[in-house]
């Protein structure tokens, strides 16, 4: 079949440049004949530009939203007039599943929920469950859990640092922080066998004691980590680009911050010195010598300074914990909740029965409820659990700090530019796993 050639004329309407040689911004519309013509100029060029507001959608799949967050923005040019966040794209029914699992079986779930603070969540949940059971943990376990939580805080802040830098445009600190994180991962892997989803605690103690030589490796880490913090500090803190991109953005006043229920570095950057470790302490934090950095303005730069200083303070706590680690058992001597050693379970009838009952039925706490809050890297992380005397909780509630922090984002971003919105979003330090659960 013979082919014929066709010539198609594409009418662009204009050359794209106006009389002064500047590019035209008139929108093109498709006319009745199918020809593309420029619409009548809807905007006047010049300083007082009164144009349309755009409604645009960021996410849920987007590199800079730190997870599956959807932001619908009303933009006046580049300026954000209104920001409407939508969450729920990572809702996986954690709290529902918690009602169908024994207390020790819930521990792996706490890893996945705030995955950057996995071992910290394990410790927090174990504290809550232990309160529900009425158990006080051993001194050695107390110090080990402090070490775990501070290591976790360091790892989480490093992710925050890396991803915030990428969002603002600096790629190198991302590689530095992930390299340091690999060292934390090595320590955790030597202890519990997993890098991120550690499931390190059990009700009444820990899954395993630290191996020989682990404290030396931690000592090495504590000795060398401040050099990396100094490097990052040198690169960013007085860097004109960094300061220009972060100062003055997204400030929340202290009264607003408290009323919006903000917590963590966000609240402290706004000037409110609320740290759960100091105000409602747990794991003997009142006996450790550490400071809580508090900002003044509450903008993105202050949040950055607060978190970097928190890295230093965490290292300080780790050094103190290393000094005071006592010998002794890690787990409580309570056969209701703690599995007997394998050798005894295989030889001694009573231990075998305890093992059987704990694994098949689960340990049963008395009827009651407990709310234990810890200072996670994101803020006040609370686990509220209600028991009706059975092995599975009636209700397991996670108080998600980043969800409540994120709910203030419309207030924080109005009036700022689109690129500022990205920086402000990064400074809140959200983890969608915790927000949506």
């Amino acid at each position, binding site marked *: 079949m013979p082919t014929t050639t066709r010539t198609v004329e594409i009418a662009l309407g204009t050359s794209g440049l106006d009389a002064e040689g500047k590019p035209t911004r008139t929108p093109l519309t498709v006319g009745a004949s199918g020809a593309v013509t420029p619409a009548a100029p809807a905007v006047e060029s010049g300083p007082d530009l009164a144009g349309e507001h755009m409604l645009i959608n960021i996410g849920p799949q987007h590199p800079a939203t730190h997870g599956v967050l959807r932001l619908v923005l009303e933009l006046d040019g580049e300026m954000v007039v209104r920001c409407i966040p939508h969450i729920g*794209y*990572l809702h*996986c*029914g954690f709290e529902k599943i918690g009602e169908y699992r*024994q207390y020790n079986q819930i521990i792996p779930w706490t890893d996945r929920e705030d995955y*950057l603070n*996995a071992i910290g969540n394990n410790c927090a949940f174990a504290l809550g469950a232990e309160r529900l059971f009425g158990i006080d943990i051993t001194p050695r376990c107390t110090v080990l859990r402090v070490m775990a939580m501070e290591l976790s805080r360091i790892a989480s802040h490093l992710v925050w640092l890396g991803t915030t830098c990428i969002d603002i445009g600096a790629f190198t600190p991302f590689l530095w922080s992930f390299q340091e*994180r*690999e060292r934390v991962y090595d320590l955790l892997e030597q202890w519990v066998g997993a890098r991120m*989803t550690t499931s390190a605690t059990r009700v009444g103690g820990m899954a395993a004691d630290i191996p020989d030589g682990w404290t030396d490796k931690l000592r090495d880490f504590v000795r060398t980590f401040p050099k990396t913090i100094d490097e990052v500090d040198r690169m960013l803190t007085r860097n004109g680009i960094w300061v220009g991109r972060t100062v003055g953005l997204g400030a929340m006043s202290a009264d607003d911050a408290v009323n919006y229920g903000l917590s963590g570095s966000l609240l402290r950057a706004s000037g409110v010195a609320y740290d759960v470790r100091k105000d409602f302490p747990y794991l003997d934090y009142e006996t450790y010598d550490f400071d809580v950095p508090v900002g003044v303005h509450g903008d993105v730069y202050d949040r950055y300074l607060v978190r970097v200083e928190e890295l230093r303070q965490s290292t300080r706590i780790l050094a103190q914990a290393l000094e005071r680690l006592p010998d002794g058992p890690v787990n409580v001597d309570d056969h209701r909740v703690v599995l007997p050693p394998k050798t005894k379970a295989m030889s001694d009838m009573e231990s075998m029965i305890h093992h059987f009952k704990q694994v098949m039925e689960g340990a049963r706490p008395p009827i009651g409820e407990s709310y234990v809050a810890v200072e996670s890297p994101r803020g006040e992380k609370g686990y509220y659990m209600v028991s009706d005397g059975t092995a599975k909780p009636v209700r397991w509630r996670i108080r998600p700090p980043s969800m409540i922090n994120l709910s203030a984002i419309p207030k924080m971003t109005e009036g700022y530019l689109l690129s500022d919105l990205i920086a402000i979003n990064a400074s809140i330090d959200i983890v969608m796993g915790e927000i949506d659960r």
Partner: protein
Amino acid sequence: MAVTAGGAPGRTVATYDPPGSENWLTTRLDALINWGRAGSLWPMPFGTACCAIEFMATAATRFDLARFGMERLGYTPRQADVLICAGRVPLKLAPVLRRIWEQMPQPKWCISMGACASSGGMFDNYAVVQGIDTIIPVDVYVPGCPPRPEGLLYGILMLQEKVRRERLRDTETRDEMQVDPDTGLYIPAPAIDELAEPFGNSVHQTRSGL
């Protein structure tokens, strides 16, 4: 060239006919194209949860994705080759994943990273898709919760091997999935229900109940 073996009634007749369109030139062309594709699979990280952090760790300095030509992450699906679904996919995110997959131009592949993307993982409840292969076609499954970076790299190597085995004569390799317009599913509904059933000796997933 065809070789036929005939036979008496009752005997099987086998016909050996190598695909007529393959020759030395097409195999060299295949090798070239597949080498190019396998060596520079630009990933589209559809990272949702913990696996996304392990993916980032794989891309960082210790495990380095750049040596596989994959350091250029295409966050826009239009410029990506392989969708790495890292993390659990809840039902609310399912249409988003489907749309991202449809926006990717051929040739495209999919790596399902982690237990949750491959089968729903530990989330056998009302909210989570029991395996993204119920929504989009998957090429490589990487098990783990989360998979170690070495595990993900092994999955990437498997995908590269799969890419190298593609042939130009297989015209169906680059066909899009056929989605049923009424339901939106591309595999039959009974198959999805069967895949998603809790499996094993006990219908219940824990020893002591649901």
